[in-house]
Protein backbone atom coordinates (compact mmCIF):
# COMPACT_ATOMS: atom_id res chain seq x y z
CA UNK A 1 0.00 0.00 0.00
CA UNK A 2 1.31 3.44 -0.89
CA UNK A 3 2.19 5.77 1.95
CA UNK A 4 0.19 8.97 2.35
CA UNK A 5 1.40 11.55 -0.15
CA UNK A 6 3.36 9.06 -2.23
CA UNK A 7 2.91 9.10 -6.00
CA UNK A 8 1.60 6.05 -7.82
CA UNK A 9 1.76 4.93 -11.44
CA UNK A 10 1.37 1.90 -13.65
CA UNK A 11 3.99 -0.79 -12.96
CA UNK A 12 6.52 -0.94 -15.82
CA UNK A 13 5.69 -4.62 -16.37
CA UNK A 14 2.03 -3.73 -16.88
CA UNK A 15 -0.04 -2.29 -19.68
CA UNK A 16 -3.64 -1.13 -19.85
CA UNK A 17 -6.08 -0.31 -22.62
CA UNK A 18 -9.68 0.75 -23.06
CA UNK A 19 -12.25 -1.92 -23.91
CA UNK A 20 -16.01 -1.67 -24.28
CA UNK A 21 -16.59 -2.78 -20.68
CA UNK A 22 -13.88 -0.57 -19.21
CA UNK A 23 -10.15 -1.18 -18.71
CA UNK A 24 -8.14 -4.28 -19.51
CA UNK A 25 -4.93 -4.57 -17.50
CA UNK A 26 -2.07 -6.87 -18.50
CA UNK A 27 0.81 -7.91 -16.26
CA UNK A 28 3.64 -9.54 -18.19
CA UNK A 29 5.11 -11.01 -14.99
CA UNK A 30 2.36 -13.67 -14.75
CA UNK A 31 1.24 -13.10 -17.32
CA UNK A 32 -2.17 -12.21 -15.93
CA UNK A 33 -5.14 -10.10 -16.91
CA UNK A 34 -7.49 -7.92 -14.94
CA UNK A 35 -10.84 -6.92 -16.41
CA UNK A 36 -12.20 -3.75 -14.81
CA UNK A 37 -15.77 -2.69 -15.46
CA UNK A 38 -14.94 0.99 -15.20
CA UNK A 39 -16.69 2.11 -18.36
CA UNK A 40 -15.16 5.43 -19.35
CA UNK A 41 -14.67 6.70 -15.79
CA UNK A 42 -10.92 6.16 -15.74
CA UNK A 43 -8.90 6.97 -18.87
CA UNK A 44 -6.51 4.17 -19.86
CA UNK A 45 -3.51 6.50 -19.76
CA UNK A 46 -4.37 7.99 -16.35
CA UNK A 47 -1.62 6.14 -14.50
CA UNK A 48 0.89 6.50 -17.31
CA UNK A 49 2.20 9.43 -15.30
CA UNK A 50 2.72 9.71 -11.55
CA UNK A 51 -0.49 10.56 -9.68
CA UNK A 52 -1.19 11.41 -6.10
CA UNK A 53 -2.59 8.51 -4.10
CA UNK A 54 -6.08 10.05 -3.91
CA UNK A 55 -6.03 11.78 -7.29
CA UNK A 56 -8.89 10.88 -9.62
CA UNK A 57 -10.21 12.31 -12.89
CA UNK A 58 -12.35 15.45 -12.71
CA UNK A 59 -16.12 15.44 -12.85
CA UNK A 60 -16.91 12.28 -10.88
CA UNK A 61 -19.75 11.93 -8.37
CA UNK A 62 -18.91 11.00 -4.78
CA UNK A 63 -20.16 7.47 -5.39
CA UNK A 64 -17.98 7.12 -8.44
CA UNK A 65 -14.98 8.50 -6.56
CA UNK A 66 -15.54 6.03 -3.73
CA UNK A 67 -15.81 3.09 -6.11
CA UNK A 68 -12.76 4.14 -8.09
CA UNK A 69 -10.69 4.68 -4.95
CA UNK A 70 -11.44 1.11 -3.86
CA UNK A 71 -10.47 -0.08 -7.31
CA UNK A 72 -7.19 1.85 -7.19
CA UNK A 73 -6.42 0.20 -3.85
CA UNK A 74 -6.99 -3.19 -5.48
CA UNK A 75 -4.66 -2.27 -8.35
CA UNK A 76 -1.98 -1.40 -5.79
CA UNK A 77 -2.49 -4.61 -3.86
CA UNK A 78 -2.33 -6.70 -7.03
CA UNK A 79 0.79 -4.91 -8.24
CA UNK A 80 -0.65 -3.31 -11.36
CA UNK A 81 0.10 0.09 -9.83
CA UNK A 82 3.11 0.84 -7.70
CA UNK A 83 4.48 3.61 -5.55
CA UNK A 84 6.85 5.90 -7.32
Amino acid at each position, binding site marked *: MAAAGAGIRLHPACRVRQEGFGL*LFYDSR*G*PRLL*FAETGRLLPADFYGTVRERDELPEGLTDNQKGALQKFVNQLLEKGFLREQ
Partner: protein
Amino acid sequence: MSNRYVEMGLRSPVNLTWEVSLACNLRCTHCLSSSGEPAHGELSTAEALDLVEQVHQAGVFQINFGGGEPFLRPDFEEILAACHGRGIMTCISTNGTLLNAERVARLATTRLVAIQVSMDGATAETCDAIRGKGVFHKAIQAIRLLAATSIPASINTVLTTQNASQIPAMYEMAHSLGVSLRVSRFRPSGRGADNWEELRPTPAQLIAFSDWLSKSGDVRTGDSFFSLTSQERQGLGLNLCGAAKLTCCVGPTGNMYPCAFLQTDRFKAGSLRDQSFQEIWDSSEIYDSFRSLRIHSCEECNRFDQCHGGCPAVAWHLKNDINGGDPECLERCVTSIADANKAAQAA
Protein backbone atom coordinates in the same frame (compact mmCIF):
# COMPACT_ATOMS: atom_id res chain seq x y z
CA MET B 1 -10.06 -15.17 -15.31
CA SER B 2 -13.44 -13.81 -16.34
CA ASN B 3 -14.67 -15.49 -19.51
CA ARG B 4 -17.61 -13.10 -19.68
CA TYR B 5 -15.45 -10.21 -20.86
CA VAL B 6 -13.52 -12.42 -23.27
CA GLU B 7 -16.74 -13.68 -24.79
CA MET B 8 -17.96 -10.10 -25.22
CA GLY B 9 -15.07 -9.71 -27.65
CA LEU B 10 -11.90 -7.69 -27.18
CA ARG B 11 -10.99 -4.90 -29.58
CA SER B 12 -7.66 -6.57 -30.31
CA PRO B 13 -5.65 -9.54 -29.06
CA VAL B 14 -3.85 -9.34 -25.74
CA ASN B 15 -0.83 -10.91 -27.38
CA LEU B 16 0.20 -11.99 -30.82
CA THR B 17 2.27 -14.99 -31.83
CA TRP B 18 4.39 -13.95 -34.78
CA GLU B 19 6.34 -16.63 -36.59
CA VAL B 20 8.77 -14.31 -38.32
CA SER B 21 10.47 -16.92 -40.47
CA LEU B 22 10.35 -20.60 -41.23
CA ALA B 23 14.13 -20.58 -41.50
CA CYS B 24 15.81 -22.71 -38.85
CA ASN B 25 19.29 -24.09 -38.34
CA LEU B 26 17.85 -27.08 -36.44
CA ARG B 27 15.41 -29.81 -37.47
CA CYS B 28 13.67 -30.68 -34.18
CA THR B 29 11.52 -33.76 -34.50
CA HIS B 30 8.54 -32.14 -32.74
CA CYS B 31 8.64 -28.80 -34.64
CA LEU B 32 5.09 -27.47 -34.94
CA SER B 33 5.82 -25.74 -38.24
CA SER B 34 8.29 -28.11 -39.95
CA SER B 35 10.82 -25.28 -39.96
CA GLY B 36 13.99 -25.50 -42.00
CA GLU B 37 14.13 -23.43 -45.17
CA PRO B 38 12.56 -19.97 -45.18
CA ALA B 39 9.05 -19.79 -46.63
CA HIS B 40 8.63 -18.35 -50.12
CA GLY B 41 7.60 -14.70 -49.85
CA GLU B 42 8.28 -14.03 -46.19
CA LEU B 43 7.40 -10.49 -45.05
CA SER B 44 9.99 -7.89 -46.06
CA THR B 45 11.54 -5.60 -43.49
CA ALA B 46 9.22 -2.78 -44.55
CA GLU B 47 6.17 -5.04 -44.27
CA ALA B 48 7.31 -6.32 -40.87
CA LEU B 49 7.84 -2.80 -39.55
CA ASP B 50 4.44 -1.77 -40.87
CA LEU B 51 2.90 -4.69 -39.01
CA VAL B 52 4.57 -3.56 -35.79
CA GLU B 53 2.95 -0.14 -36.21
CA GLN B 54 -0.44 -1.73 -36.91
CA VAL B 55 -0.15 -3.95 -33.86
CA HIS B 56 0.76 -0.92 -31.77
CA GLN B 57 -2.23 1.02 -33.06
CA ALA B 58 -4.45 -1.96 -32.24
CA GLY B 59 -3.28 -1.88 -28.62
CA VAL B 60 -1.74 -5.35 -28.51
CA PHE B 61 0.27 -5.66 -25.30
CA GLN B 62 2.83 -8.27 -26.26
CA ILE B 63 4.29 -10.02 -29.29
CA ASN B 64 5.61 -13.54 -28.85
CA PHE B 65 8.18 -14.16 -31.55
CA GLY B 66 8.82 -17.63 -32.84
CA GLY B 67 9.54 -19.41 -36.06
CA GLY B 68 11.72 -21.03 -37.25
CA GLU B 69 14.60 -19.43 -35.48
CA PRO B 70 13.83 -15.70 -35.23
CA PHE B 71 17.49 -14.67 -35.04
CA LEU B 72 18.09 -16.07 -38.52
CA ARG B 73 16.20 -13.06 -39.87
CA PRO B 74 18.90 -10.44 -40.48
CA ASP B 75 16.43 -7.67 -39.60
CA PHE B 76 15.07 -9.31 -36.46
CA GLU B 77 16.73 -6.93 -34.02
CA GLU B 78 15.39 -4.02 -36.09
CA ILE B 79 11.88 -5.46 -35.74
CA LEU B 80 12.41 -5.86 -32.00
CA ALA B 81 13.62 -2.27 -31.69
CA ALA B 82 10.49 -1.07 -33.49
CA CYS B 83 8.36 -2.98 -30.97
CA HIS B 84 10.24 -1.69 -27.95
CA GLY B 85 10.23 1.88 -29.28
CA ARG B 86 6.42 1.69 -29.18
CA GLY B 87 6.31 0.12 -25.72
CA ILE B 88 5.25 -3.30 -27.00
CA MET B 89 6.49 -6.10 -24.76
CA THR B 90 8.18 -8.98 -26.53
CA CYS B 91 9.00 -12.58 -25.78
CA ILE B 92 11.36 -14.48 -28.05
CA SER B 93 11.33 -18.23 -28.41
CA THR B 94 14.77 -19.25 -29.64
CA ASN B 95 16.87 -22.38 -29.84
CA GLY B 96 19.70 -20.38 -28.28
CA THR B 97 22.38 -21.39 -30.78
CA LEU B 98 22.68 -17.86 -32.20
CA LEU B 99 22.85 -16.05 -28.87
CA ASN B 100 26.31 -14.74 -28.11
CA ALA B 101 27.57 -12.26 -25.53
CA GLU B 102 27.31 -9.28 -27.90
CA ARG B 103 23.74 -10.03 -28.93
CA VAL B 104 22.62 -10.69 -25.36
CA ALA B 105 24.20 -7.41 -24.24
CA ARG B 106 22.26 -5.56 -26.95
CA LEU B 107 19.01 -7.26 -25.96
CA ALA B 108 19.61 -6.43 -22.30
CA THR B 109 19.46 -2.71 -23.02
CA THR B 110 15.66 -2.86 -22.99
CA ARG B 111 13.36 -3.94 -20.17
CA LEU B 112 10.71 -5.03 -22.62
CA VAL B 113 12.10 -8.37 -23.76
CA ALA B 114 11.87 -11.86 -22.29
CA ILE B 115 13.60 -14.86 -23.83
CA GLN B 116 12.70 -18.53 -23.82
CA VAL B 117 15.43 -20.97 -24.80
CA SER B 118 14.11 -24.29 -26.01
CA MET B 119 15.48 -27.45 -24.39
CA ASP B 120 13.88 -30.86 -24.43
CA GLY B 121 15.57 -32.82 -21.70
CA ALA B 122 17.64 -32.58 -18.56
CA THR B 123 20.44 -34.49 -20.25
CA ALA B 124 22.24 -33.99 -23.54
CA GLU B 125 21.20 -37.47 -24.62
CA THR B 126 17.47 -36.78 -24.24
CA CYS B 127 17.54 -33.20 -25.51
CA ASP B 128 19.78 -33.84 -28.50
CA ALA B 129 17.70 -36.83 -29.62
CA ILE B 130 14.95 -34.31 -30.39
CA ARG B 131 16.89 -31.14 -31.23
CA GLY B 132 20.16 -32.40 -32.73
CA LYS B 133 23.67 -33.25 -31.62
CA GLY B 134 25.40 -30.62 -29.50
CA VAL B 135 22.31 -28.44 -29.06
CA PHE B 136 21.93 -29.14 -25.34
CA HIS B 137 25.31 -27.62 -24.48
CA LYS B 138 24.80 -24.63 -26.80
CA ALA B 139 21.43 -23.94 -25.16
CA ILE B 140 23.00 -24.14 -21.69
CA GLN B 141 25.63 -21.61 -22.80
CA ALA B 142 22.90 -19.26 -24.03
CA ILE B 143 20.96 -19.60 -20.78
CA ARG B 144 24.09 -18.78 -18.76
CA LEU B 145 24.59 -15.62 -20.84
CA LEU B 146 20.96 -14.60 -20.30
CA ALA B 147 20.96 -15.41 -16.59
CA ALA B 148 23.81 -12.98 -16.10
CA THR B 149 21.60 -10.13 -17.33
CA SER B 150 18.32 -8.59 -16.23
CA ILE B 151 16.45 -10.27 -19.10
CA PRO B 152 13.68 -12.54 -17.79
CA ALA B 153 14.76 -15.89 -19.19
CA SER B 154 13.31 -19.35 -19.15
CA ILE B 155 13.88 -22.84 -20.41
CA ASN B 156 11.01 -23.86 -22.65
CA THR B 157 10.36 -27.56 -22.82
CA VAL B 158 7.88 -29.42 -24.96
CA LEU B 159 6.53 -32.32 -22.93
CA THR B 160 7.12 -35.60 -24.79
CA THR B 161 7.18 -39.22 -23.76
CA GLN B 162 10.99 -39.11 -23.83
CA ASN B 163 11.40 -36.24 -21.39
CA ALA B 164 8.30 -36.61 -19.22
CA SER B 165 10.23 -38.25 -16.40
CA GLN B 166 12.88 -35.51 -16.52
CA ILE B 167 10.59 -32.52 -16.00
CA PRO B 168 11.32 -32.25 -12.25
CA ALA B 169 15.04 -32.45 -13.04
CA MET B 170 14.60 -29.72 -15.66
CA TYR B 171 12.90 -27.60 -13.02
CA GLU B 172 15.91 -28.06 -10.75
CA MET B 173 18.28 -27.37 -13.63
CA ALA B 174 16.46 -24.15 -14.53
CA HIS B 175 16.63 -22.95 -10.94
CA SER B 176 20.30 -23.83 -10.64
CA LEU B 177 20.94 -21.77 -13.78
CA GLY B 178 18.94 -18.84 -12.40
CA VAL B 179 16.04 -18.99 -14.85
CA SER B 180 12.51 -20.34 -14.77
CA LEU B 181 10.92 -23.35 -16.46
CA ARG B 182 8.12 -23.20 -18.97
CA VAL B 183 6.52 -26.38 -20.24
CA SER B 184 4.61 -26.46 -23.50
CA ARG B 185 2.25 -29.02 -24.86
CA PHE B 186 3.30 -31.26 -27.74
CA ARG B 187 0.73 -30.96 -30.53
CA PRO B 188 0.49 -32.97 -33.72
CA SER B 189 1.23 -30.23 -36.25
CA GLY B 190 4.22 -29.82 -38.59
CA ARG B 191 6.92 -32.42 -37.97
CA GLY B 192 5.14 -33.06 -34.69
CA ALA B 193 2.40 -34.75 -36.72
CA ASP B 194 4.94 -36.98 -38.48
CA ASN B 195 6.44 -38.05 -35.16
CA TRP B 196 3.28 -37.96 -33.07
CA GLU B 197 3.06 -41.61 -32.10
CA GLU B 198 6.75 -41.76 -31.24
CA LEU B 199 6.79 -38.61 -29.10
CA ARG B 200 3.33 -38.17 -27.58
CA PRO B 201 3.21 -38.52 -23.80
CA THR B 202 1.15 -41.43 -22.51
CA PRO B 203 -2.06 -40.76 -20.54
CA ALA B 204 -0.22 -41.87 -17.38
CA GLN B 205 2.57 -39.38 -18.08
CA LEU B 206 0.05 -36.59 -18.67
CA ILE B 207 -1.69 -37.34 -15.38
CA ALA B 208 1.63 -37.48 -13.53
CA PHE B 209 2.60 -34.16 -15.12
CA SER B 210 -0.72 -32.60 -14.13
CA ASP B 211 -0.15 -33.76 -10.56
CA TRP B 212 3.41 -32.39 -10.52
CA LEU B 213 2.25 -29.12 -12.04
CA SER B 214 -0.34 -28.67 -9.30
CA LYS B 215 2.54 -28.53 -6.78
CA SER B 216 4.75 -26.31 -8.94
CA GLY B 217 3.06 -22.93 -9.05
CA ASP B 218 6.07 -21.11 -10.45
CA VAL B 219 6.23 -23.24 -13.60
CA ARG B 220 4.76 -21.42 -16.56
CA THR B 221 2.67 -23.20 -19.13
CA GLY B 222 1.24 -20.36 -21.20
CA ASP B 223 -2.07 -21.59 -22.52
CA SER B 224 -0.72 -25.06 -23.13
CA PHE B 225 -2.14 -27.23 -20.41
CA PHE B 226 -5.48 -25.82 -19.34
CA SER B 227 -7.04 -29.11 -20.43
CA LEU B 228 -4.95 -30.79 -17.71
CA THR B 229 -5.07 -28.04 -15.13
CA SER B 230 -5.84 -29.19 -11.63
CA GLN B 231 -7.91 -27.25 -9.14
CA GLU B 232 -4.73 -26.01 -7.49
CA ARG B 233 -3.71 -24.05 -10.57
CA GLN B 234 -7.09 -22.56 -11.35
CA GLY B 235 -6.70 -18.83 -11.47
CA LEU B 236 -3.11 -19.01 -12.69
CA GLY B 237 -4.07 -19.09 -16.34
CA LEU B 238 -6.71 -19.76 -18.91
CA ASN B 239 -9.62 -22.13 -18.62
CA LEU B 240 -10.50 -21.97 -22.28
CA CYS B 241 -8.85 -21.76 -25.67
CA GLY B 242 -7.78 -18.15 -26.25
CA ALA B 243 -7.41 -18.41 -30.03
CA ALA B 244 -9.09 -15.49 -31.82
CA LYS B 245 -10.31 -14.20 -28.46
CA LEU B 246 -7.17 -13.26 -26.56
CA THR B 247 -4.50 -14.17 -29.07
CA CYS B 248 -3.86 -14.90 -32.72
CA CYS B 249 -0.98 -15.83 -34.99
CA VAL B 250 0.79 -14.17 -37.90
CA GLY B 251 2.75 -16.54 -40.11
CA PRO B 252 6.02 -15.78 -41.94
CA THR B 253 4.29 -14.58 -45.13
CA GLY B 254 1.75 -12.36 -43.37
CA ASN B 255 -1.16 -14.78 -43.20
CA MET B 256 -3.15 -14.63 -40.00
CA TYR B 257 -4.46 -17.71 -38.17
CA PRO B 258 -6.25 -18.41 -34.86
CA CYS B 259 -3.09 -19.95 -33.38
CA ALA B 260 0.34 -21.24 -34.33
CA PHE B 261 -0.89 -24.83 -34.42
CA LEU B 262 -3.52 -24.12 -37.07
CA GLN B 263 -1.41 -22.52 -39.78
CA THR B 264 -3.18 -24.16 -42.70
CA ASP B 265 -5.34 -22.81 -45.52
CA ARG B 266 -8.42 -24.21 -43.77
CA PHE B 267 -7.85 -21.80 -40.88
CA LYS B 268 -6.43 -18.80 -42.73
CA ALA B 269 -8.20 -15.72 -41.37
CA GLY B 270 -6.71 -13.32 -43.91
CA SER B 271 -3.51 -11.95 -45.38
CA LEU B 272 -1.84 -8.76 -44.20
CA ARG B 273 -1.00 -8.16 -47.84
CA ASP B 274 -4.72 -7.80 -48.58
CA GLN B 275 -6.19 -6.39 -45.36
CA SER B 276 -5.05 -4.58 -42.25
CA PHE B 277 -4.38 -6.36 -38.97
CA GLN B 278 -7.40 -4.69 -37.39
CA GLU B 279 -9.70 -5.55 -40.32
CA ILE B 280 -8.78 -9.21 -40.11
CA TRP B 281 -9.22 -9.29 -36.32
CA ASP B 282 -12.60 -7.56 -36.57
CA SER B 283 -14.13 -9.27 -39.58
CA SER B 284 -12.56 -12.67 -40.28
CA GLU B 285 -15.16 -15.44 -40.51
CA ILE B 286 -12.60 -17.91 -39.18
CA TYR B 287 -12.07 -15.78 -36.09
CA ASP B 288 -15.83 -15.42 -35.67
CA SER B 289 -16.20 -19.19 -35.80
CA PHE B 290 -13.63 -19.61 -33.02
CA ARG B 291 -15.31 -16.95 -30.89
CA SER B 292 -18.61 -18.78 -31.11
CA LEU B 293 -17.10 -22.26 -30.78
CA ARG B 294 -18.89 -24.35 -28.16
CA ILE B 295 -17.71 -27.90 -27.55
CA HIS B 296 -21.14 -29.33 -26.84
CA SER B 297 -19.85 -32.89 -26.60
CA CYS B 298 -17.93 -31.87 -23.46
CA GLU B 299 -20.65 -29.89 -21.71
CA GLU B 300 -21.73 -32.78 -19.50
CA CYS B 301 -18.19 -33.35 -18.26
CA ASN B 302 -17.56 -32.43 -14.62
CA ARG B 303 -14.40 -30.56 -15.69
CA PHE B 304 -16.10 -28.49 -18.38
CA ASP B 305 -15.75 -25.25 -16.41
CA GLN B 306 -12.03 -25.91 -16.10
CA CYS B 307 -11.24 -26.41 -19.79
CA HIS B 308 -14.33 -25.80 -21.96
CA GLY B 309 -13.40 -28.65 -24.25
CA GLY B 310 -9.65 -28.09 -24.33
CA CYS B 311 -7.50 -27.41 -27.36
CA PRO B 312 -9.40 -27.28 -30.68
CA ALA B 313 -6.12 -27.61 -32.60
CA VAL B 314 -5.40 -31.02 -31.11
CA ALA B 315 -8.99 -32.08 -31.78
CA TRP B 316 -8.60 -30.96 -35.38
CA HIS B 317 -5.29 -32.71 -35.99
CA LEU B 318 -6.30 -35.97 -34.34
CA LYS B 319 -10.01 -36.16 -35.10
CA ASN B 320 -10.42 -33.76 -38.01
CA ASP B 321 -13.15 -32.14 -35.93
CA ILE B 322 -12.71 -28.72 -34.39
CA ASN B 323 -15.79 -29.35 -32.24
CA GLY B 324 -14.67 -32.77 -31.13
CA GLY B 325 -13.24 -32.00 -27.71
CA ASP B 326 -9.62 -32.38 -26.70
CA PRO B 327 -8.62 -36.05 -27.04
CA GLU B 328 -5.91 -35.63 -24.41
CA CYS B 329 -7.78 -33.81 -21.65
CA LEU B 330 -7.40 -34.93 -18.04
CA GLU B 331 -10.78 -36.66 -18.00
CA ARG B 332 -9.99 -38.66 -21.14
CA CYS B 333 -6.56 -39.62 -19.77
CA VAL B 334 -8.19 -40.98 -16.62
CA THR B 335 -10.83 -42.84 -18.64
CA SER B 336 -8.23 -44.21 -21.01
CA ILE B 337 -6.19 -45.69 -18.14
CA ALA B 338 -9.30 -47.10 -16.46
CA ASP B 339 -10.37 -48.75 -19.72
CA ALA B 340 -6.91 -50.22 -20.20
CA ASN B 341 -6.95 -51.63 -16.66
CA LYS B 342 -10.37 -53.17 -17.20
CA ALA B 343 -9.22 -54.72 -20.45
CA ALA B 344 -6.13 -56.13 -18.73
CA GLN B 345 -8.23 -57.61 -15.91
CA ALA B 346 -10.68 -59.11 -18.39
CA ALA B 347 -7.81 -60.72 -20.26
